[in-house]
Each structure stands twice: as C-alpha cells, then as structure tokens.
C-alpha cells in the first residue's frame, strides 16, 4: 500500500519534472526565436540600461555616493528581476489557456517555467554584477555568501507575485496596464539611483514598506558597506516572500476550476 503510494508519487514528480523542463525549453526557444543575438540580449539589455543610468545620474549623485556604479547596479538587478518575472509571469495562464482547457496539467507549472527563465537571466546578470563590483574596487568578503538568502527569497516572492497576477489577469485584463504603471512608480520609490538618507526619518521608514527596497537595502549593506543586515530585515524579507507565495498558492487552489470559464 505504502509502496504503491510512493511509486505513484515519484511518477508524478517525474512527469511534472519532464513537463517543467520541456516548458522551460519551449519558453526559451520562443523568446529568442529570430533574434540574431539571442540570449545575449538578456545580458546586453541590463548593461545598456546601467550605462544609460550611469551617464544620466552621475552628475547628480556620483560625487556623494561612493561606488556609484555598484550602488546603481545593486538596485537595478533586484528591480529588473522583479519587474521582468512578474510582467512575463502575468500572462502565462492566459497564454497557455488553449492547453489547460484541453489537457489536464498542473496549471502552476506554466508560471514556474516562465519564472525559471527569468531566474536564469538573473543569475547570469548577478555574475556580471560581481565582475563590475571587482572593477569598482569593492572589497569581497565572506559576507557575500549571505546574498544567497535574498536571492532565494526574491525568487519565492516573484513566484508568489506571478501566481497572484496571472490569476488576476485571467479575470481582469486591465491588470496589465495597472501593473505597468505600478512598476514605474515602484522604480522611483525603490531608491535605485539615490540614497534615502536625504529624506526625513519619517519618510525613510516608508521606504521599508516597499518589499523591493528591502532586497536592495540588503544587497547594498553587504556589498557596499560590508555589514550583515539586521535580523528584522531578514525576518521581513522572509515573511513577505512566504506570505505572497502562499497567497498565490491559495488563489490557484481556490480558482483552479474557475479559470476555464474566463478564457
């Protein structure tokens, strides 16, 4: 009895793993189909963006903020990962509607596969980020290993947000435009290119209400200042990631059969 249960369970995992891998492959191929540079774009794009921001903001901030390139880049990788994975994750359910309305498949796998793609991009850029840190004469310490924590939490946070958004998107297509505007706003309040200590203490506190800023602050404390962030910051990051993730899981479970009516 138990053995049979374990067998069906491992089979399920194998099936889902196979499907997940094939979906990741499909999304990769589709994304870079007919582009000459292919995957190179996912590296070039943030680098060009960094270059632009560096050129534009140097005049305003570079004198006051040491290691300004690293400072900028820290914020950008976090924000771009969040922005990319949620924007692309949002449409996964609708994009795959022709499939799950005909074939019985776990619907969350579509989002997981899409997220895997943005995660791989993120890791690539993270590597380049460290190269830039070295060029910028940032001191590498063992504390860099702690970055694994926000990287994992951010992945969970992004998946959670993607689950919520993709479910909402199937009910209300308007969400796409809202989210576009929201991301723009978020970009400005995430202190990507400025320091928050020019604001009054009351306003500085407000920044910590922004989950994305928490990640950026974590990165900067480790990389730029060599400090291990406070326990509170750790708890806040972890709690928010889990909260959003389980909210997403709950929505998918609750509306699993409803999605079909809206497509």
């Amino acid at each position, binding site marked *: 009895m138990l053995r049979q249960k374990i067998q069906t369970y491992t089979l399920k995992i194998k*099936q889902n793993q196979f*499907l997940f*891998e094939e979906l990741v492959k499909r999304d990769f*191929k589709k994304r870079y189909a007919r582009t000459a540079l292919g995957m190179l774009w996912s590296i070039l794009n943030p680098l060009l963006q960094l270059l632009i921001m560096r050129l534009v903001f140097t005049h305003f901030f570079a004198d006051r903020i040491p290691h300004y390139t690293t400072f900028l880049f820290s914020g950008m990788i976090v924000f771009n990962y969040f922005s990319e994975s949620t924007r692309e994750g949002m449409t996964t359910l609708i994009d795959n509607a*022709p499939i*799950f309305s*005909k074939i019985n498949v776990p619907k969350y796998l579509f989002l997981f596969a899409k997220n895997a793609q943005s995660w791989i991009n993120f890791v690539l850029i993270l590597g380049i980020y460290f190269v830039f840190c070295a060029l910028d004469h940032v001191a590498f310490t063992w504390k860099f290993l702690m970055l694994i924590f926000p990287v994992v939490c951010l992945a969970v946070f992004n998946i959670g947000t993607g689950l919520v958004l993709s479910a909402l998107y199937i009910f209300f*297509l308007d969400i796409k435009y809202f989210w576009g505007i929201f991301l723009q706003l978020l970009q400005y309040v995430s202190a990507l290119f400025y320091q928050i200590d020019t604001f009054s203490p009351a306003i500085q506190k407000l920044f910590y209400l922004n989950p994305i800023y928490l990640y950026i602050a974590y990165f900067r404390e480790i990389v730029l200042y060599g400090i291990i962030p406070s326990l509170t910051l750790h708890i806040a990051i972890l709690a928010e990631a889990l909260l959003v993730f389980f909210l997403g899981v709950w929505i998918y479970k609750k509306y699993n059969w409803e999605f079909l*009516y809206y497509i």
Partner: protein
Amino acid sequence: MSIIEVHNVSIRYKKGNFKDIGLKDYIIRKIRGTYHVEDFWADKDINFSLENGDMLGIIGTNGAGKSTLLKAISGVMEPTHGYIRHEGRISSLLELTGGFDDALTVRENTFLRGAFLGYTRQFMNKKYDEIIQFAELEEFQAHLFSQLSSGMKSRLAFSVASLIRPDILILDEVLSVGDGAFRKKSEAKMMEIIRGGATTLLVSHSLDQVRSLCNKILWLNKGQQIAFTKNVREACDQYEAFLDGNLDISEVTARKELN
C-alpha cells in the same frame, strides 16, 4: 468493477456578462448590483459506466454536452454535481493541435506533447522513433511545426496519444482527419488498443464510424441523457431519424435499455 463510472454528473458553465467586461465595469456593476452570472448546464444528470474493452460512441447534435463531458472525464473540468471514477491512465485527444507550438520543431513538439500527456522522459526517449514512424514524419523531424500540413499535424497528435497503450482513450472528433490511408491505419491502431483491453470514448459525427467501431452508445441532447445502450444499431437508426426530423426525442425507444 467498471473502468469508468459516471454517476449523476451535472456540469455547469458560468455564462453572462462577466467575461467581456473589464475591471471598471466589474466594479460599477457590483456597486449597482447589476452584475450577474448565469448558469448554463452543459450536462445534466449523466449516468453510465464502462467495462474493460468497451468502446463508447457519444452522439448528439452541437451543444449536446459531449465535449464538456469528455473534459470532465479527462480531468480538465470538475463536475458540479455527482462524481466520475476511473481506473488506470487516461490519454485524451480532445483537440488535435492543442498544446503544439508553431515555433518549435516536430521533434520538440513531440516531446512537449508527451510531457503534457503525462509521460516521462525515459518513456519518450524510448518511444520517440516509433511515434515518428507511425506518423510518417521521418523526414520532417527538424521542420517547424507551422510548416506541416494539417493532416500531418493530426497524424502526429494521434501517434503521440495512441502509442502509449492507455487504459482509457478519449477521442473527440479526431478520426475524421488525415487522408484515407492514415485513417485506416489509425482505426486499425485503435482496434489494437481496444483489443489490448483499453476502454475508449469516441465522439464522432460520422455515424458509419460509430456503427462499425462502438459497442455502446451514449446519446446526449442539450445536456440531457437520451439513451445509454448496448443496442448500437437501434440507437444510431433512431438518431438518424431524429436528425432527419422524423422522430421526436420523446419517442426514442432505445433509451429504455440500460438506463
């Protein structure tokens, strides 16, 4: 024990103005209280069970609830009332090209489709050549899926779904595609699967096909179960008469049996 048991199954679709409105209209209508969802019963109180090796033909005009029922059996939808029990693995061909991607090659699509149908990678590695061979697509493996003709596409779909020896095979309007030669081949393949003990559910508008292949008939009309019978010939005759307008649905005698 029956392989499939469909017990008092009713399936409701939600209809109404919720689908096409955006967020603004949704909120306005919620506030005004004019937001409403209509229920539409695609299937109502369906009862039947199938044994090993049965081949069920599901007949009925458009909108009878055939496809919805098959969706519920294959697990894409959930019955609103009642339950469906089944044993063994289901392989369903609800729509031929669903799940295929035009931007991928034939080979990639074969694997993707296999993954959708719940096979493992080892299994697909082992069966891949056989699938391609059966679909007669050996020369097209590296072609993009969009370059195939529609007949080729359905051949591939049929091959992936049928070479697996499923316990239950669900076919929705899929045998009427492909050229004559392949149709013969796929029918032979299906008979092989059925003789191997598989239970098959077939939706087809070709009554000749139903007559020659099926040993049981489920007749649906506007979501109602008109008949579930072993008497294939009588049911098909009456269905034909009904289609020609010579028979009222209430006069169907085939319904008495097995119901």
